[in-house]
């Protein structure tokens, strides 16, 4: 038996019963799913405490590093943590950055809920941007309709690509992780090929496409800033629909149940394959739409030259949101606020903004490490159990 990636997760668990016992069935992928029921109260209270501790530790490390490298540490800290809230422009920057994070955050949440490490959101976001750009250049439609046609097209393309790792995993048990990583590069190269060879504006210096049709660009909320009404509405709709799908429909339940325990769900007769592949298709649709919204909000022509990284950020957002689309906007806002704060700090005091991404990764580790604060969790459970037994005795 070879231990390639594809066989690994399933094989190890089957062979190692203790690993199965350690996995809490009430939690989704990465141990942090929304939970399917049962002792939610303590769990969610504990998750909140754990998140706050992780954030505090992250902020403390940030402060330490800034004190170590900055000549004006207090000023740097002020720009970093208060900066984004000081002027309307900075705050709009936060909201502008939040939008793509909402889309990729929801996209990744959909995959992670089903315990599928499909990371194609990164490539699909880029590909969706390209599809929207091409549609915005080549088609002519009335004002209100045009951008949504482009976004729809990008969503469809995203759904098709998102299905590939899902299908390969389901049919032949190929590692969705590796396939999706490779797909990201294919998406990037193919998009660049299309733009460079068919839609490149040779009069412009850099490698950029022709300008979009004016009708295809989304309308701004406020003329001065790049935040678009259509983008905000779509992002909100995506969160809401994804939440309803995951938590209020039979399919969504199958997805989460499959994520928590694939075999058990199979025995209950729920259509697991459909749910799991379906969640990845939807994830692709959302990521593709996200790329399109970003393209038609922030730009007037295609000018990306490298993968955006929003797909990877989506992983961070999904973990903070515990794979629940309902929490994605808050998580995306938090991340965007930190990023813009770090950007302001960099421009004002020269402390490189990369530090904030390092800190985010550290917070992520603390959030997904099951044993982090495990003792606190244990104490909480014991306290709760003791209280309940006292109540039970009193009743008796």
């Amino acid at each position, binding site marked *: 038996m070879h*231990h390639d990636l594809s066989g690994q997760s399933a094989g190890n668990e089957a062979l190692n019963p203790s690993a199965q016992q350690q996995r809490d069935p009430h939690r989704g992928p990465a141990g942090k799913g929304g939970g399917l029921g049962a002792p939610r109260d303590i769990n969610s209270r504990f998750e909140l405490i754990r998140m706050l501790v992780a954030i505090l530790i992250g902020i403390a490390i940030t402060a330490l590093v800034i004190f170590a490298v900055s000549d004006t540490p207090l000023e740097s800290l002020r720009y970093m943590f208060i900066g984004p809230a000081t002027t309307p422009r900075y705050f709009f920057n936060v909201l502008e950055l939040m939008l793509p994070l909402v889309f990729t955050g929801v996209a990744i949440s959909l995959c992670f809920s089903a315990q599928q490490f499909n990371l194609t959101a990164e490539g699909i976001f880029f590909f969706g941007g390209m599809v929207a750009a091409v549609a915005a250049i080549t088609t002519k439609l009335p004002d209100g309709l045009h951008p949504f046609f482009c976004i729809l097209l990008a969503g469809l393309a995203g759904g098709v690509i998102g299905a590939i790792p899902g299908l390969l995993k389901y049919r032949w048990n190929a*590692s969705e992780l590796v396939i999706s990583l490779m797909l990201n590069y294919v998406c990037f190269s193919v998009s660049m090929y299309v733009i460079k*060879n068919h839609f490149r504006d040779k009069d412009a210096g850099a490698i950029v496409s022709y300008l979009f049709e004016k009708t295809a660009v989304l309308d701004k909320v406020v003329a001065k800033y790049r935040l678009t009404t259509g983008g905000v509405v779509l992002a909100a709709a995506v969160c809401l629909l994804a939440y309803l799908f995951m938590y209020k429909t039979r399919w969504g339940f199958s997805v989460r149940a499959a994520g928590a325990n694939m075999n058990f769900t199979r025995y209950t007769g729920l259509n697991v394959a459909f749910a799991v592949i379906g969640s990845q298709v939807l994830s692709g649709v959302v990521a593709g739409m996200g790329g399109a919204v970003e393209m038609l909000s922030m730009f007037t022509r295609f000018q990306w030259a490298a993968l955006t990284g929003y797909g990877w950020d989506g992983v961070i957002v999904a973990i903070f949101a515990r794979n629940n689309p309902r929490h994605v906007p808050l998580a995306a806002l938090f991340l965007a606020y930190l990023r813009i704060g770090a950007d302001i700090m960099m421009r004002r005091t020269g402390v490189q903004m990369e530090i904030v991404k*390092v800190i985010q990764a550290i917070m*992520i580790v603390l959030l997904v490490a099951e044993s982090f604060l495990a003792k606190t969790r244990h104490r909480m459970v014991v306290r709760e159990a003791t209280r309940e037994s006292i109540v039970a005795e009193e009743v008796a």
Partner: protein
Amino acid sequence: MSAFFEAVGNVAFAAQILRVATPILLAALGATIASQAGCLNMGLEGIMLFAALTGVYVSSMTQNASWGAWAGLLAALAVGALLGALLAYLVLHLKTDATLAGVAINVIGSNATVFLMYVWTGSPGTSASQKSYVLPTVSIPVIRDIPVVGTVFSGQNVVTYMAFALVAALAFFLYRTPLGLRIRGVGLNPGAADSVGINVVGVKYLAYVLSGVLAAMGGAFMSMGYVSWFARDMTAGRGFIALAAQAMGRSTPVGSMLSSIFFGFTMALSNSMQSLSIPFELIEAMPYACTILALSAYAYQQTRKKKQSSGG
């Protein structure tokens, strides 16, 4: 088509394949040893970046042309071992999901290296402003005089030779030594390995550390052989390609080598065919598309085998 053969038939092209394949091969060997122990090292990319920066920094600090690069390599390997141990701690002790722990290491590697490079050099792009040293190339006495063979196999960087020697070494280690046997035993069936007294967690730690060291060697090659400086995100996804190479090579050292050479071939091809009429981007996408096809074909074949054995 004739232009294709002109590009590929070139002797320098063959030499370039080995050069381009080196960092992928080393990281793929790292992925292989982890996978043999039943572990997933998703953090190869981040470990390579840390190692690449460490190598350049230490070699530059020594200000010594004769052994500075070697000191850099050693320091890079040490950093790789540390990061491997960190990943093992996260996964084995803190029970972090291996994929997410790896993603975190990659995010940290990609950004912390830029941050540290800026603190060191004042530039957020490359470390080229600081003088650092490269690991030597080796000219092999007899072989270098043979016409074609000499151009391909002599004059490569010392790390390239080490990488291919490590394929044999790792194969021997995994299949012919007691410790290698233990690693494979833990990967195949941790419960059974535990029942005969093997320290499963210890063995997995070792696998992660060795995996980190191998990936670090690939990273050090990037900044002290492939080029002579550190640049932001210079590994450009090689850690992920290495994971694919390991999966395609079915987690064996020789298989990983063959698939790494395949990747080296397609990457060298995309470098040398830029002058041809085939669009660069499509050639660039080829190694990745081929991986998807190869992995799917392998998975398909495995599923069929399983069906046949269970059906018959």
